[in-house]
Every structure is written in C-alpha cells, then in structure tokens.
C-alpha cells in the first residue's frame, strides 16, 4: 500500500467542504448568540439612564456610580440603594450578594434591567474587578 497514486492526484474536496461547514455553523452560532438580548449590556452612567426613558426596558445595562451615603436599606436579602455619577441619581434594587467593597461612597457597577425608575440588578460588582488596577 503506497501513498502516491491515490493521495497526490485527488484534491480533498470533501474535507474542505466539511471544514467550511463547521466554520459556517460556528459563525452562525456567534451571530445568533450576539443577538440575544442578554448577550451584551451597555455601560452607562446614572444620568444617562435617567435620559433613556421607556425605550430602555428590554435591554441589560451596566450602570456605574458611587453608592450615596445614607441610601442603603436592607429588607431581608433584598437591598435598595442609590447610585450617582455626581448628577442624576438612580435607585437600584437587588437580591444579589453585594461585593465585599460595598459601602457608602464606594464605586460599584450594577447590572440588570431598567424599568423606568428602578434598576433591577441581578449583579452588583466592585468597580475594578481586575487584579491589576490601571493607574488613574
């Protein structure tokens, strides 16, 4: 059994087609997944949220700001607090665990859906999740 006659003469069309099919399926998956409403979330400040209005209802947002002093209320595992970017504040309500750095004045990111006046956050993160903080 030698390699030469069969191997060199024939082009591997079937394999190329197979590889192209895999690539096409994955590309389709990526496009489909990117269009899921929960795939991407826009990063906005609290005053940008205030200007969004009702159009914002069907999308995820990540809202960054500082926790306002005196605004934190606990009701069982639900926490309500107000975030501000220095201008318009935003009320956030969440049942998620708060980051260990959470306190009045701390910078946090609340991620969730906006109902028109309240951000229902399913995640509250410390502002800088990465290990190496960029020098400000």
């Amino acid at each position, binding site marked *: 059994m030698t390699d030469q006659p069969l191997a060199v003469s024939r082009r591997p069309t079937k394999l190329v087609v197979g*590889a192209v099919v895999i690539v096409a399926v994955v590309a389709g998956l990526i496009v489909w997944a990117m269009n899921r409403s929960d795939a*991407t979330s826009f990063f906005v400040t609290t005053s940008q949220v205030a200007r969004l209005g009702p159009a914002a209802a069907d999308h995820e947002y990540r809202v960054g700001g500082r926790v306002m002093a005196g605004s934190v209320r606990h009701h069982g595992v639900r926490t309500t607090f107000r975030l501000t970017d220095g201008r318009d504040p935003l009320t956030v309500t969440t049942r998620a665990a708060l980051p260990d750095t959470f306190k009045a004045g701390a910078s946090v990111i609340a991620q969730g859906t906006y109902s028109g006046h309240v951000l229902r956050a399913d995640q509250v993160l410390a502002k800088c999740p990465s*290990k190496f903080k960029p020098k400000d």
Partner: protein
Amino acid sequence: MRSLASLGYPSLVCALVFAAGAAGLAAVGARRRRRDLTSAALRAMAVAAAATIVAAGALVTALFAHDFSVAYIAQYSSRSLGAPYLLTALWGGMDGSLLFWTVLLTAFAAIALSRAHLRDTALAGWATVILAGISSFFLVLLLVPADPFARLATPPADGSGLNPLLQSPGMVAHPPLLYTGFVGFSIPFAFAVAALITGRVEDSWWTWTRRWTLFAWSALSIGIVIGGAWAYTELGWGGYWAWDPVENASLLPWLTATAYLHSVVIQERRRMFKAWNVSLIVLTYSLALFGTFLTRSGLLSSIHTFSEGPVGRWFLPFFGAVLLGGVLLVLYRADRLRSEHTFDSLLSRESVFLANNVLFVAAAVTVLWGTIYPIVAEALTGERLSVGPPFFDSVFIPIGLAILLLAGAGPLVSWRRMSPRAGLRVAALPLAAGAITAAVLAALGVRSPGALTAFALCAFTAVSVIAEFERGSRVYRHRDHAGLLPALVRTVARNRRRYAGYIVHLGVVLIVIGLAGSAFRTESARVLEPGSSMSVGSYRLTFEGARTHLTPEAQVHQATVAVSRGGRRIATLHPRRDFHLAQQQWQSEVAIRSTPAEDLYLVITNLHRDGAAELRAFVNPLTMWIWIGAAVMLVGMTVLLTEPRRARAEAAAPARERAAAEPVGAL
C-alpha cells in the same frame, strides 16, 4: 530602612546589556556562520538570566525586610502579611509580575538554548536572536514604565497590604503556573521563527520544542483549573468561571496550543499541516502576549485608559511586530511548508484531527470575539458595553461538546481510510453507552437537553477510550497473565504518547461531567436570626450564631451552621466574614461540604448589628469531578513529560512506514 533593593535596578540594567548583547552577537553569528559568536551569545543569555534572578531575589528579600521605601513593596505588602503571601506579593502587582515573567523568560531561554545549541547551531543562533530580543523588550519595560524598584520620597510606616482576595493558597500557585505556560510558549515560537528564517522547516526542531509546548500547555491547563478553584473558594458567588476577560485571556492561548498539540501528531505521522502548525505556534504566542498585556494595560476598563496606561503604549508595537512578523514569515516560506501527503478519505483519523483543529480555533475565535468586542465597539461607536456569559455559553458549549465527540470518535477511526461498515462495528459499544446513559438520565427526570447531550457524550468518549486500554493491554493479560494494573502500566509504558493522551482525555471527560453538573445548580438566600433555619436542595440549614475574634490581619466573624438532611444532622459548617484591618475591607470566606454527588456551598454575605446573618447557600452537583478530572489530566501530562529521550526520538522518526502498517495511531 535600607535593604538589598538597591541591587535590583543595576541588576536589571546589567541583564538588559547582556540580553541585548546576546541578540546582537547571535545575529552576527547566525549570518556569518560563526559558531564562536553563537556560543558567546548563549553565555551572555545565561548571564542575563542570572542578573534577572538576582533582581527578583533583591525584590523578594526587600519584601521580607519590609523595605517600604520601595513603592511596589509599600503598595502590595504589609508588616502583618504572612511569609507565603510576602512571596506572592512578588506577582501580586503589575511591576512585580512583569519581573517574575522576565525571570521565567530568561531562565527558560538559557536552558532551552544551551540544549538546542548542541544539536543545531544555526537554528539555535536565530532562536537566540528572538529570545534575547524578547527578553530585552521586557527588561526595557522593567527599567522604564514598570520599574518595581522605584523609591518613595517618604516611606510609609507600614504598607497598604496585599488584596485579601489574593491571600489564598490558590494565588500562590495560579499566577506562576499561568506565567510558566505563557512564557513557555516563547520557546516553540522562537524556534519556529528561527526555522522559518533559515528555511529549514524540516521536522527535527518540532520534536525538541514539542516537549516545551507540552510543558507550557500542562502548566497553563493546571493553572487555569487552579484559577477556577480559587474563584470558587474565594469569590463567594458559587461558581468558578465567569467569562471575565482576565479568565478569557488565559483560555485563548490554551485553545490554540491544544489545537497544535493535536495537529502536530498529524505532522509527525503524515507530514501534513506544516504551515498550519507554524501558524498555530505564532498564534499561541501572540495570544499569550495579548493575555499578559490585556490584564495589565487598562484596556479592560476602557479603550481610553489603555492608550494612557504606562505599559499599554509599549505593548502595541511589540505585539504587532510579533504577530505581523510571524505571519509574514509563514507566507514567505509557504512553498517549503507544503504537505507531503493529502487526505485519503473523509472517514479517517486525519479528518478527525482536522475537525478538532477547526473547532479549537473556532472556539478561540469565539472567545476572542467576545473579549475584544467591547473594545472594538467602543472604538467604532463610542458606546461602552460588555459581553456576558450568555453569549459565551451559547457558542462555546456546543463547540466544546463537538470536540468531546471527536475525542471519542478519534480512537475508533483508523489512519488514512476506513469503510463505514468497519466504523460502525467499532463504534457500536461506545454509541450504545451514550444512548443508554441519555435514556437512563431522561427516565430519572433529567430534562436539560444540554446536560443530557453532555452526559451521553461523556459516556461515549469514556467507553471508546477505555476500550482502547482494554485492547492495548489484552496481550499482556492473556499472553503473559499479568494482573489488570501491571498490564495497564505496561500498555502505557509501551506507547506513552498514545495512552497518556487517552489519560488526559479521560480527565477531560470527568471535567465535562463536573461542568455539566452546573446545569442543576440551586441556590437560596435568607437573612437568618440565630436559631432560625432555611432550606436548600435536600438540606436544612440552621444558623446557630457567630463568634468574633481578632487576628493580626483581621477581625474574624465565624458563623456556625448546622446542616441536616431528612431530620438527621450530617455536618457543621463555619462560613466566615472577616474584616481586614489593613485594607478596611470585608471579605467572606466560604464553607463547602464537598461530596462526589454534590457540593453544599455556604457564604455569609452580610452580618447585621442585631446578630442576624445573610446566608447564601448553593447546591452544586458534581463539582468535585472537575478537580478529580484535573488530577487525572495531571497524571497523563506527567506520563507524557517523563517520556524517555530514546522513545521520543523513535516516535519522531519518519512515520511513513508505520502509518501504513499500524492500524491505530499515537498521540
């Protein structure tokens, strides 16, 4: 207080002089074919490595001496920090971690080059140019924008301490393993570039750098798993992987390196895929660099902090040079990288490997896309956004399951060609195992299609691979009447690559079982007064109160939670919530009751003044199998890495004859 820190900067200057000198000498030596110059360059590289190690030693001794006149030490350590974590402070911040990276780079380069030099001077010469050049770049970084020895005009009395999250055993092991992986890939990269420059792309250099690739890949694999275990035990959200860009950065080179380790088998056996393999090496190294800088450049917070970041603006030209240079060289040598054979048949092991490669690279593209999309979107539209786990899960999980299917199909298919009828005959048992698994689980009430598919594929692949061990050890058991274990050991010893590869695959199967278990995660959260209870899964949890005590580091609040099931007390867990004094920061320490069936995971997320505790409880089925699978993978990796030199040389010998004679192949 003065310490040996004053040795650091001069040592780095010395290292740069020798590394740059090595690059220059090696370049002249390689062009003029002067062996003496190449040898001198190798010695210079060894001096550069020694000087870099001295610099790192100076930083470590200064850390232990609490020399807070060094800005880095003041920022990342404190007097109360325990000994192991003083050492981890070496890589706890950006400047120190770059120094640690450079230590590994220069040391690996010196070791790899001194060995390669004996075999092939010309190739080693060019590899020296590349490695000494990369080392010089990192040393310049350490001397200019990221000097770990920069002094403070007025040293503080105590440092600000290491982030409490990093004070964990996982953080002692995770960064060094990741860096070993990332840096290890620079060795195959340097030799690939050297082979492209010299035009000597024949197979010999692949085999010596293959071991470095395996070593780097193994360290990276274990490092990633330990990172997941660290996140699981430290971060307190009940999971281990969040598709955070920092995590993705470590996964990207792992995916392309894994593709390479598979396709290089085809190259050894069939002399195919050469251009593809060189490209994978270039890509893997580029992604390792990308990951290193992604986590340090500020690129993740915003594209604007990136260009302002001290390291970012150095990184872009360097990364561009590596990637562009690599691609241009591959194109330049394209005619010499042609395959010597082509595919014979769609149903062959070659095509399984090809599909595996396409899928691994597609997975890498997916992760890369999700990771850099926010950067691209911000640059194009000015809008800032992030890509979340739903995107990654919905693309990565199907790709991962398809790869698992191939891991099961690979051993069933023979090289070159196979009749569909023969294929069905060998696949019957594994297929039946998969179908029965799915049917049994469905009958037991499992409804998640993803999890059913995953478990069925795990059964298919496991049976396919175990059947290989059965087939391989049959001769020892029947002819020599060896016991099961001795027969298996002899089987593995006879063809380490193939069977060690299968051991790694079995580990992967166990990991997938653990990952699939997360589809059945349940959680519950409540604020509990002392004496009150809550339920999660089949458990009843009673909060019996918290006790407070003070350590030099933190104020520790230790809760006592009684765990009962069916009315019987089965365990007592102690989740903690510590207030770290140096950082003035709370930190939850989780308590986990781990069994092969499921983990009960408790975390106190808040303590109220009246003594009530906010308790979050997770039931994570099968999570333990992730760590067990990683341990099995480590066994396979060790068998691969301890392969005797002679066996390696044999395996690397032209495989043309064997390929025709032997029905099943090697990994």
